[in-house]
């Protein structure tokens, strides 16, 4: 080892920096021609480490890492229940058990099913779609802060992390939606052309969730305390989005101002849940949807998706700061 090193030495050691230098800021720079480090860097085409790339470069880099984003999502999906005896079956069992609890409390005990036809499909659709939205926001908050080790160890567009989180949850949603379709058929719903509307609805919901996750990832990386608040915010959002009760039926009373019902029905979670119900459940008709529901759904998706991406990218070089 020693001999090999000695043999190579004269070739690889450059003359200028190889002298021991006294410490301190005042010491002379090496004997190279360009006077300042910046000039030297410019002369040899060196760039500043860790600078934020332009938006187009960033999108290109993200596209280049698409395999990592999906592989990371799938890997986490597989790792979730890997130590459980029933394994991947829990991807199905957990949301169903969850739905059973809500059915017992809201459907049976509190009788929210009163006046709502097809309450079980109504509830299942609401819970599954909400699960995706709520978990995206919640997991997005921890996407950067919970992966600081990864952020500090490797180079990749940081948006990969919240996006792979949302893809992981979307895979989970596809599993539960598949189950839902089977359950709907078992409950006697007839498949029609309106079922195809589930696909654009899924797409818009996913874009909206990705945007929310990106926004929350930046906020969560700056102030980790936010993740402690999220359960409360999310619960409030869930209860006001008509996941387990019908906004229409409950707010039909005259003592509430009209705008309250309007605001509740135009909130993105309610829009996506109701669109999904509209496409899958026969008795859930267009009358239960707010006016201009598709422009509303597309608007929310674009606002969150584009806005969230830009907001996240603006702080790209700051993620990982202690």
């Amino acid at each position, binding site marked *: 080892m020693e001999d090999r090193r000695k043999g190579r030495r004269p070739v690889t050691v450059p003359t200028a920096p190889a002298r021991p*230098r006294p410490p301190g800021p005042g010491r002379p720079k090496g004997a190279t021609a360009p006077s300042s480090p*910046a000039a030297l860097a410019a002369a040899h085409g060196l760039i500043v*480490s860790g600078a934020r790339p332009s938006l187009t470069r960033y999108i290109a880099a993200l596209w280049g890492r698409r395999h990592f984003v999906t592989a990371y999502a799938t890997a986490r999906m597989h790792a979730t229940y890997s130590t459980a005896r029933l394994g991947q079956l829990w991807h199905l069992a957990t949301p169903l058990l969850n739905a059973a609890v809500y059915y017992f409390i809201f459907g049976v005990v509190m009788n929210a099913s009163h006046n709502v036809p097809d309450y079980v499909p109504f509830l299942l659709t609401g819970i599954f779609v909400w699960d995706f939205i709520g978990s995206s926001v919640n997991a997005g908050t921890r996407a950067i802060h919970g992966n600081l080790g990864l952020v500090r160890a490797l*180079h990749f567009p940081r948006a990969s992390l919240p996006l792979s989180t949302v893809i992981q949850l979307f895979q989970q949603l596809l599993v539960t939606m598949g189950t839902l379709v089977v359950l709907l058929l078992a409950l006697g719903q007839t498949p029609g052309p309106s079922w195809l509307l589930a696909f654009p609805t899924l797409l818009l919901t996913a874009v909206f969730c990705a945007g929310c996750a990106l926004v929350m990832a930046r906020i969560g990386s700056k102030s980790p305390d936010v993740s402690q608040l999220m359960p409360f915010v999310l619960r409030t959002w869930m209860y006001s989005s008509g996941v387990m009760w019908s906004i229409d039926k409950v707010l039909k009373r005259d003592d509430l101002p009209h705008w309250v019902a309007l605001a509740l029905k135009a909130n993105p979670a309610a829009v996506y849940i109701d669109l999904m119900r509209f496409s899958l459940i026969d008795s859930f008709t267009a009358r239960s949807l707010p006016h201009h529901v598709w422009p509303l759904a597309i608007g929310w998706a674009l606002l969150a998706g584009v806005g969230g991406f830009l907001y996240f990218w603006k702080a790209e070089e700051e993620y990982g700061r202690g």
Partner: protein
Amino acid sequence: MADPTVIADDVHVVYKVHAGGRKGGATAALGRLLSRRPGPGVREVHAVRGVSFTAYRGEAIGLIGTNGSGKSTLLKAIAGLQPVTRGRVYSQGRPSLLGVNAALMNDLSGERNVILGGLAMGMSRGQIRERYQGIVDFSGINEKGDFVSLPMRTYSSGMGARLRFSIAAAKDHDVLMIDEALATGDAAFQRRSQERVEELRERAGTVFLVSHGIATVRATCDRAIWLESGVLRMDGPAAEVCDAYEAFTRRA
């Protein structure tokens, strides 16, 4: 004159650390939140103080110094992973830290981790397929049976470390940084990994190595930078700097 690959210009890194200890009551915390003052629990750690140097193509540079002298922080700053508080780091291409550990998942098989780690480092699926067998053979985890299909949590710590190094070293880099990775594994693996560092260095241009093993630095590096309390204390041929460092640690 060789091309410079990394130029550090008066680099300062300050960490904000949320230290435990007395933080006062909830009202005090709320007051701090509103006034955006840092609380008494937040301490600033000035980990790197005004380090400047220029690294050239074909160099292997050892970073030495006692524990907590800022070596790893400096590496992260060079890699652009730890934002610098003051000063600039210029680099050729993308300096890569040989640290893929964080992307791997203990619950997945070694096989899937090789793919995941490769993707995390920015390799394409084709490249990974091409190098897969090489990575597994290099790590030697299949020497004692088919371990690569088992979850990584079932590996011994040495096996895990070997697989991690093999994955990380599978990619060619412009500027490569290795943080204490060579101390893992048995003697045979250490010899293999030292050879691999040589190879990487021939292709990479510049290799940075953080190590407490002065012998490793003497054997693999031709230049050494000695940091003490975040200040650059000495920069020169590895043998000279290591001698001075050893004299210093013996005295202390």
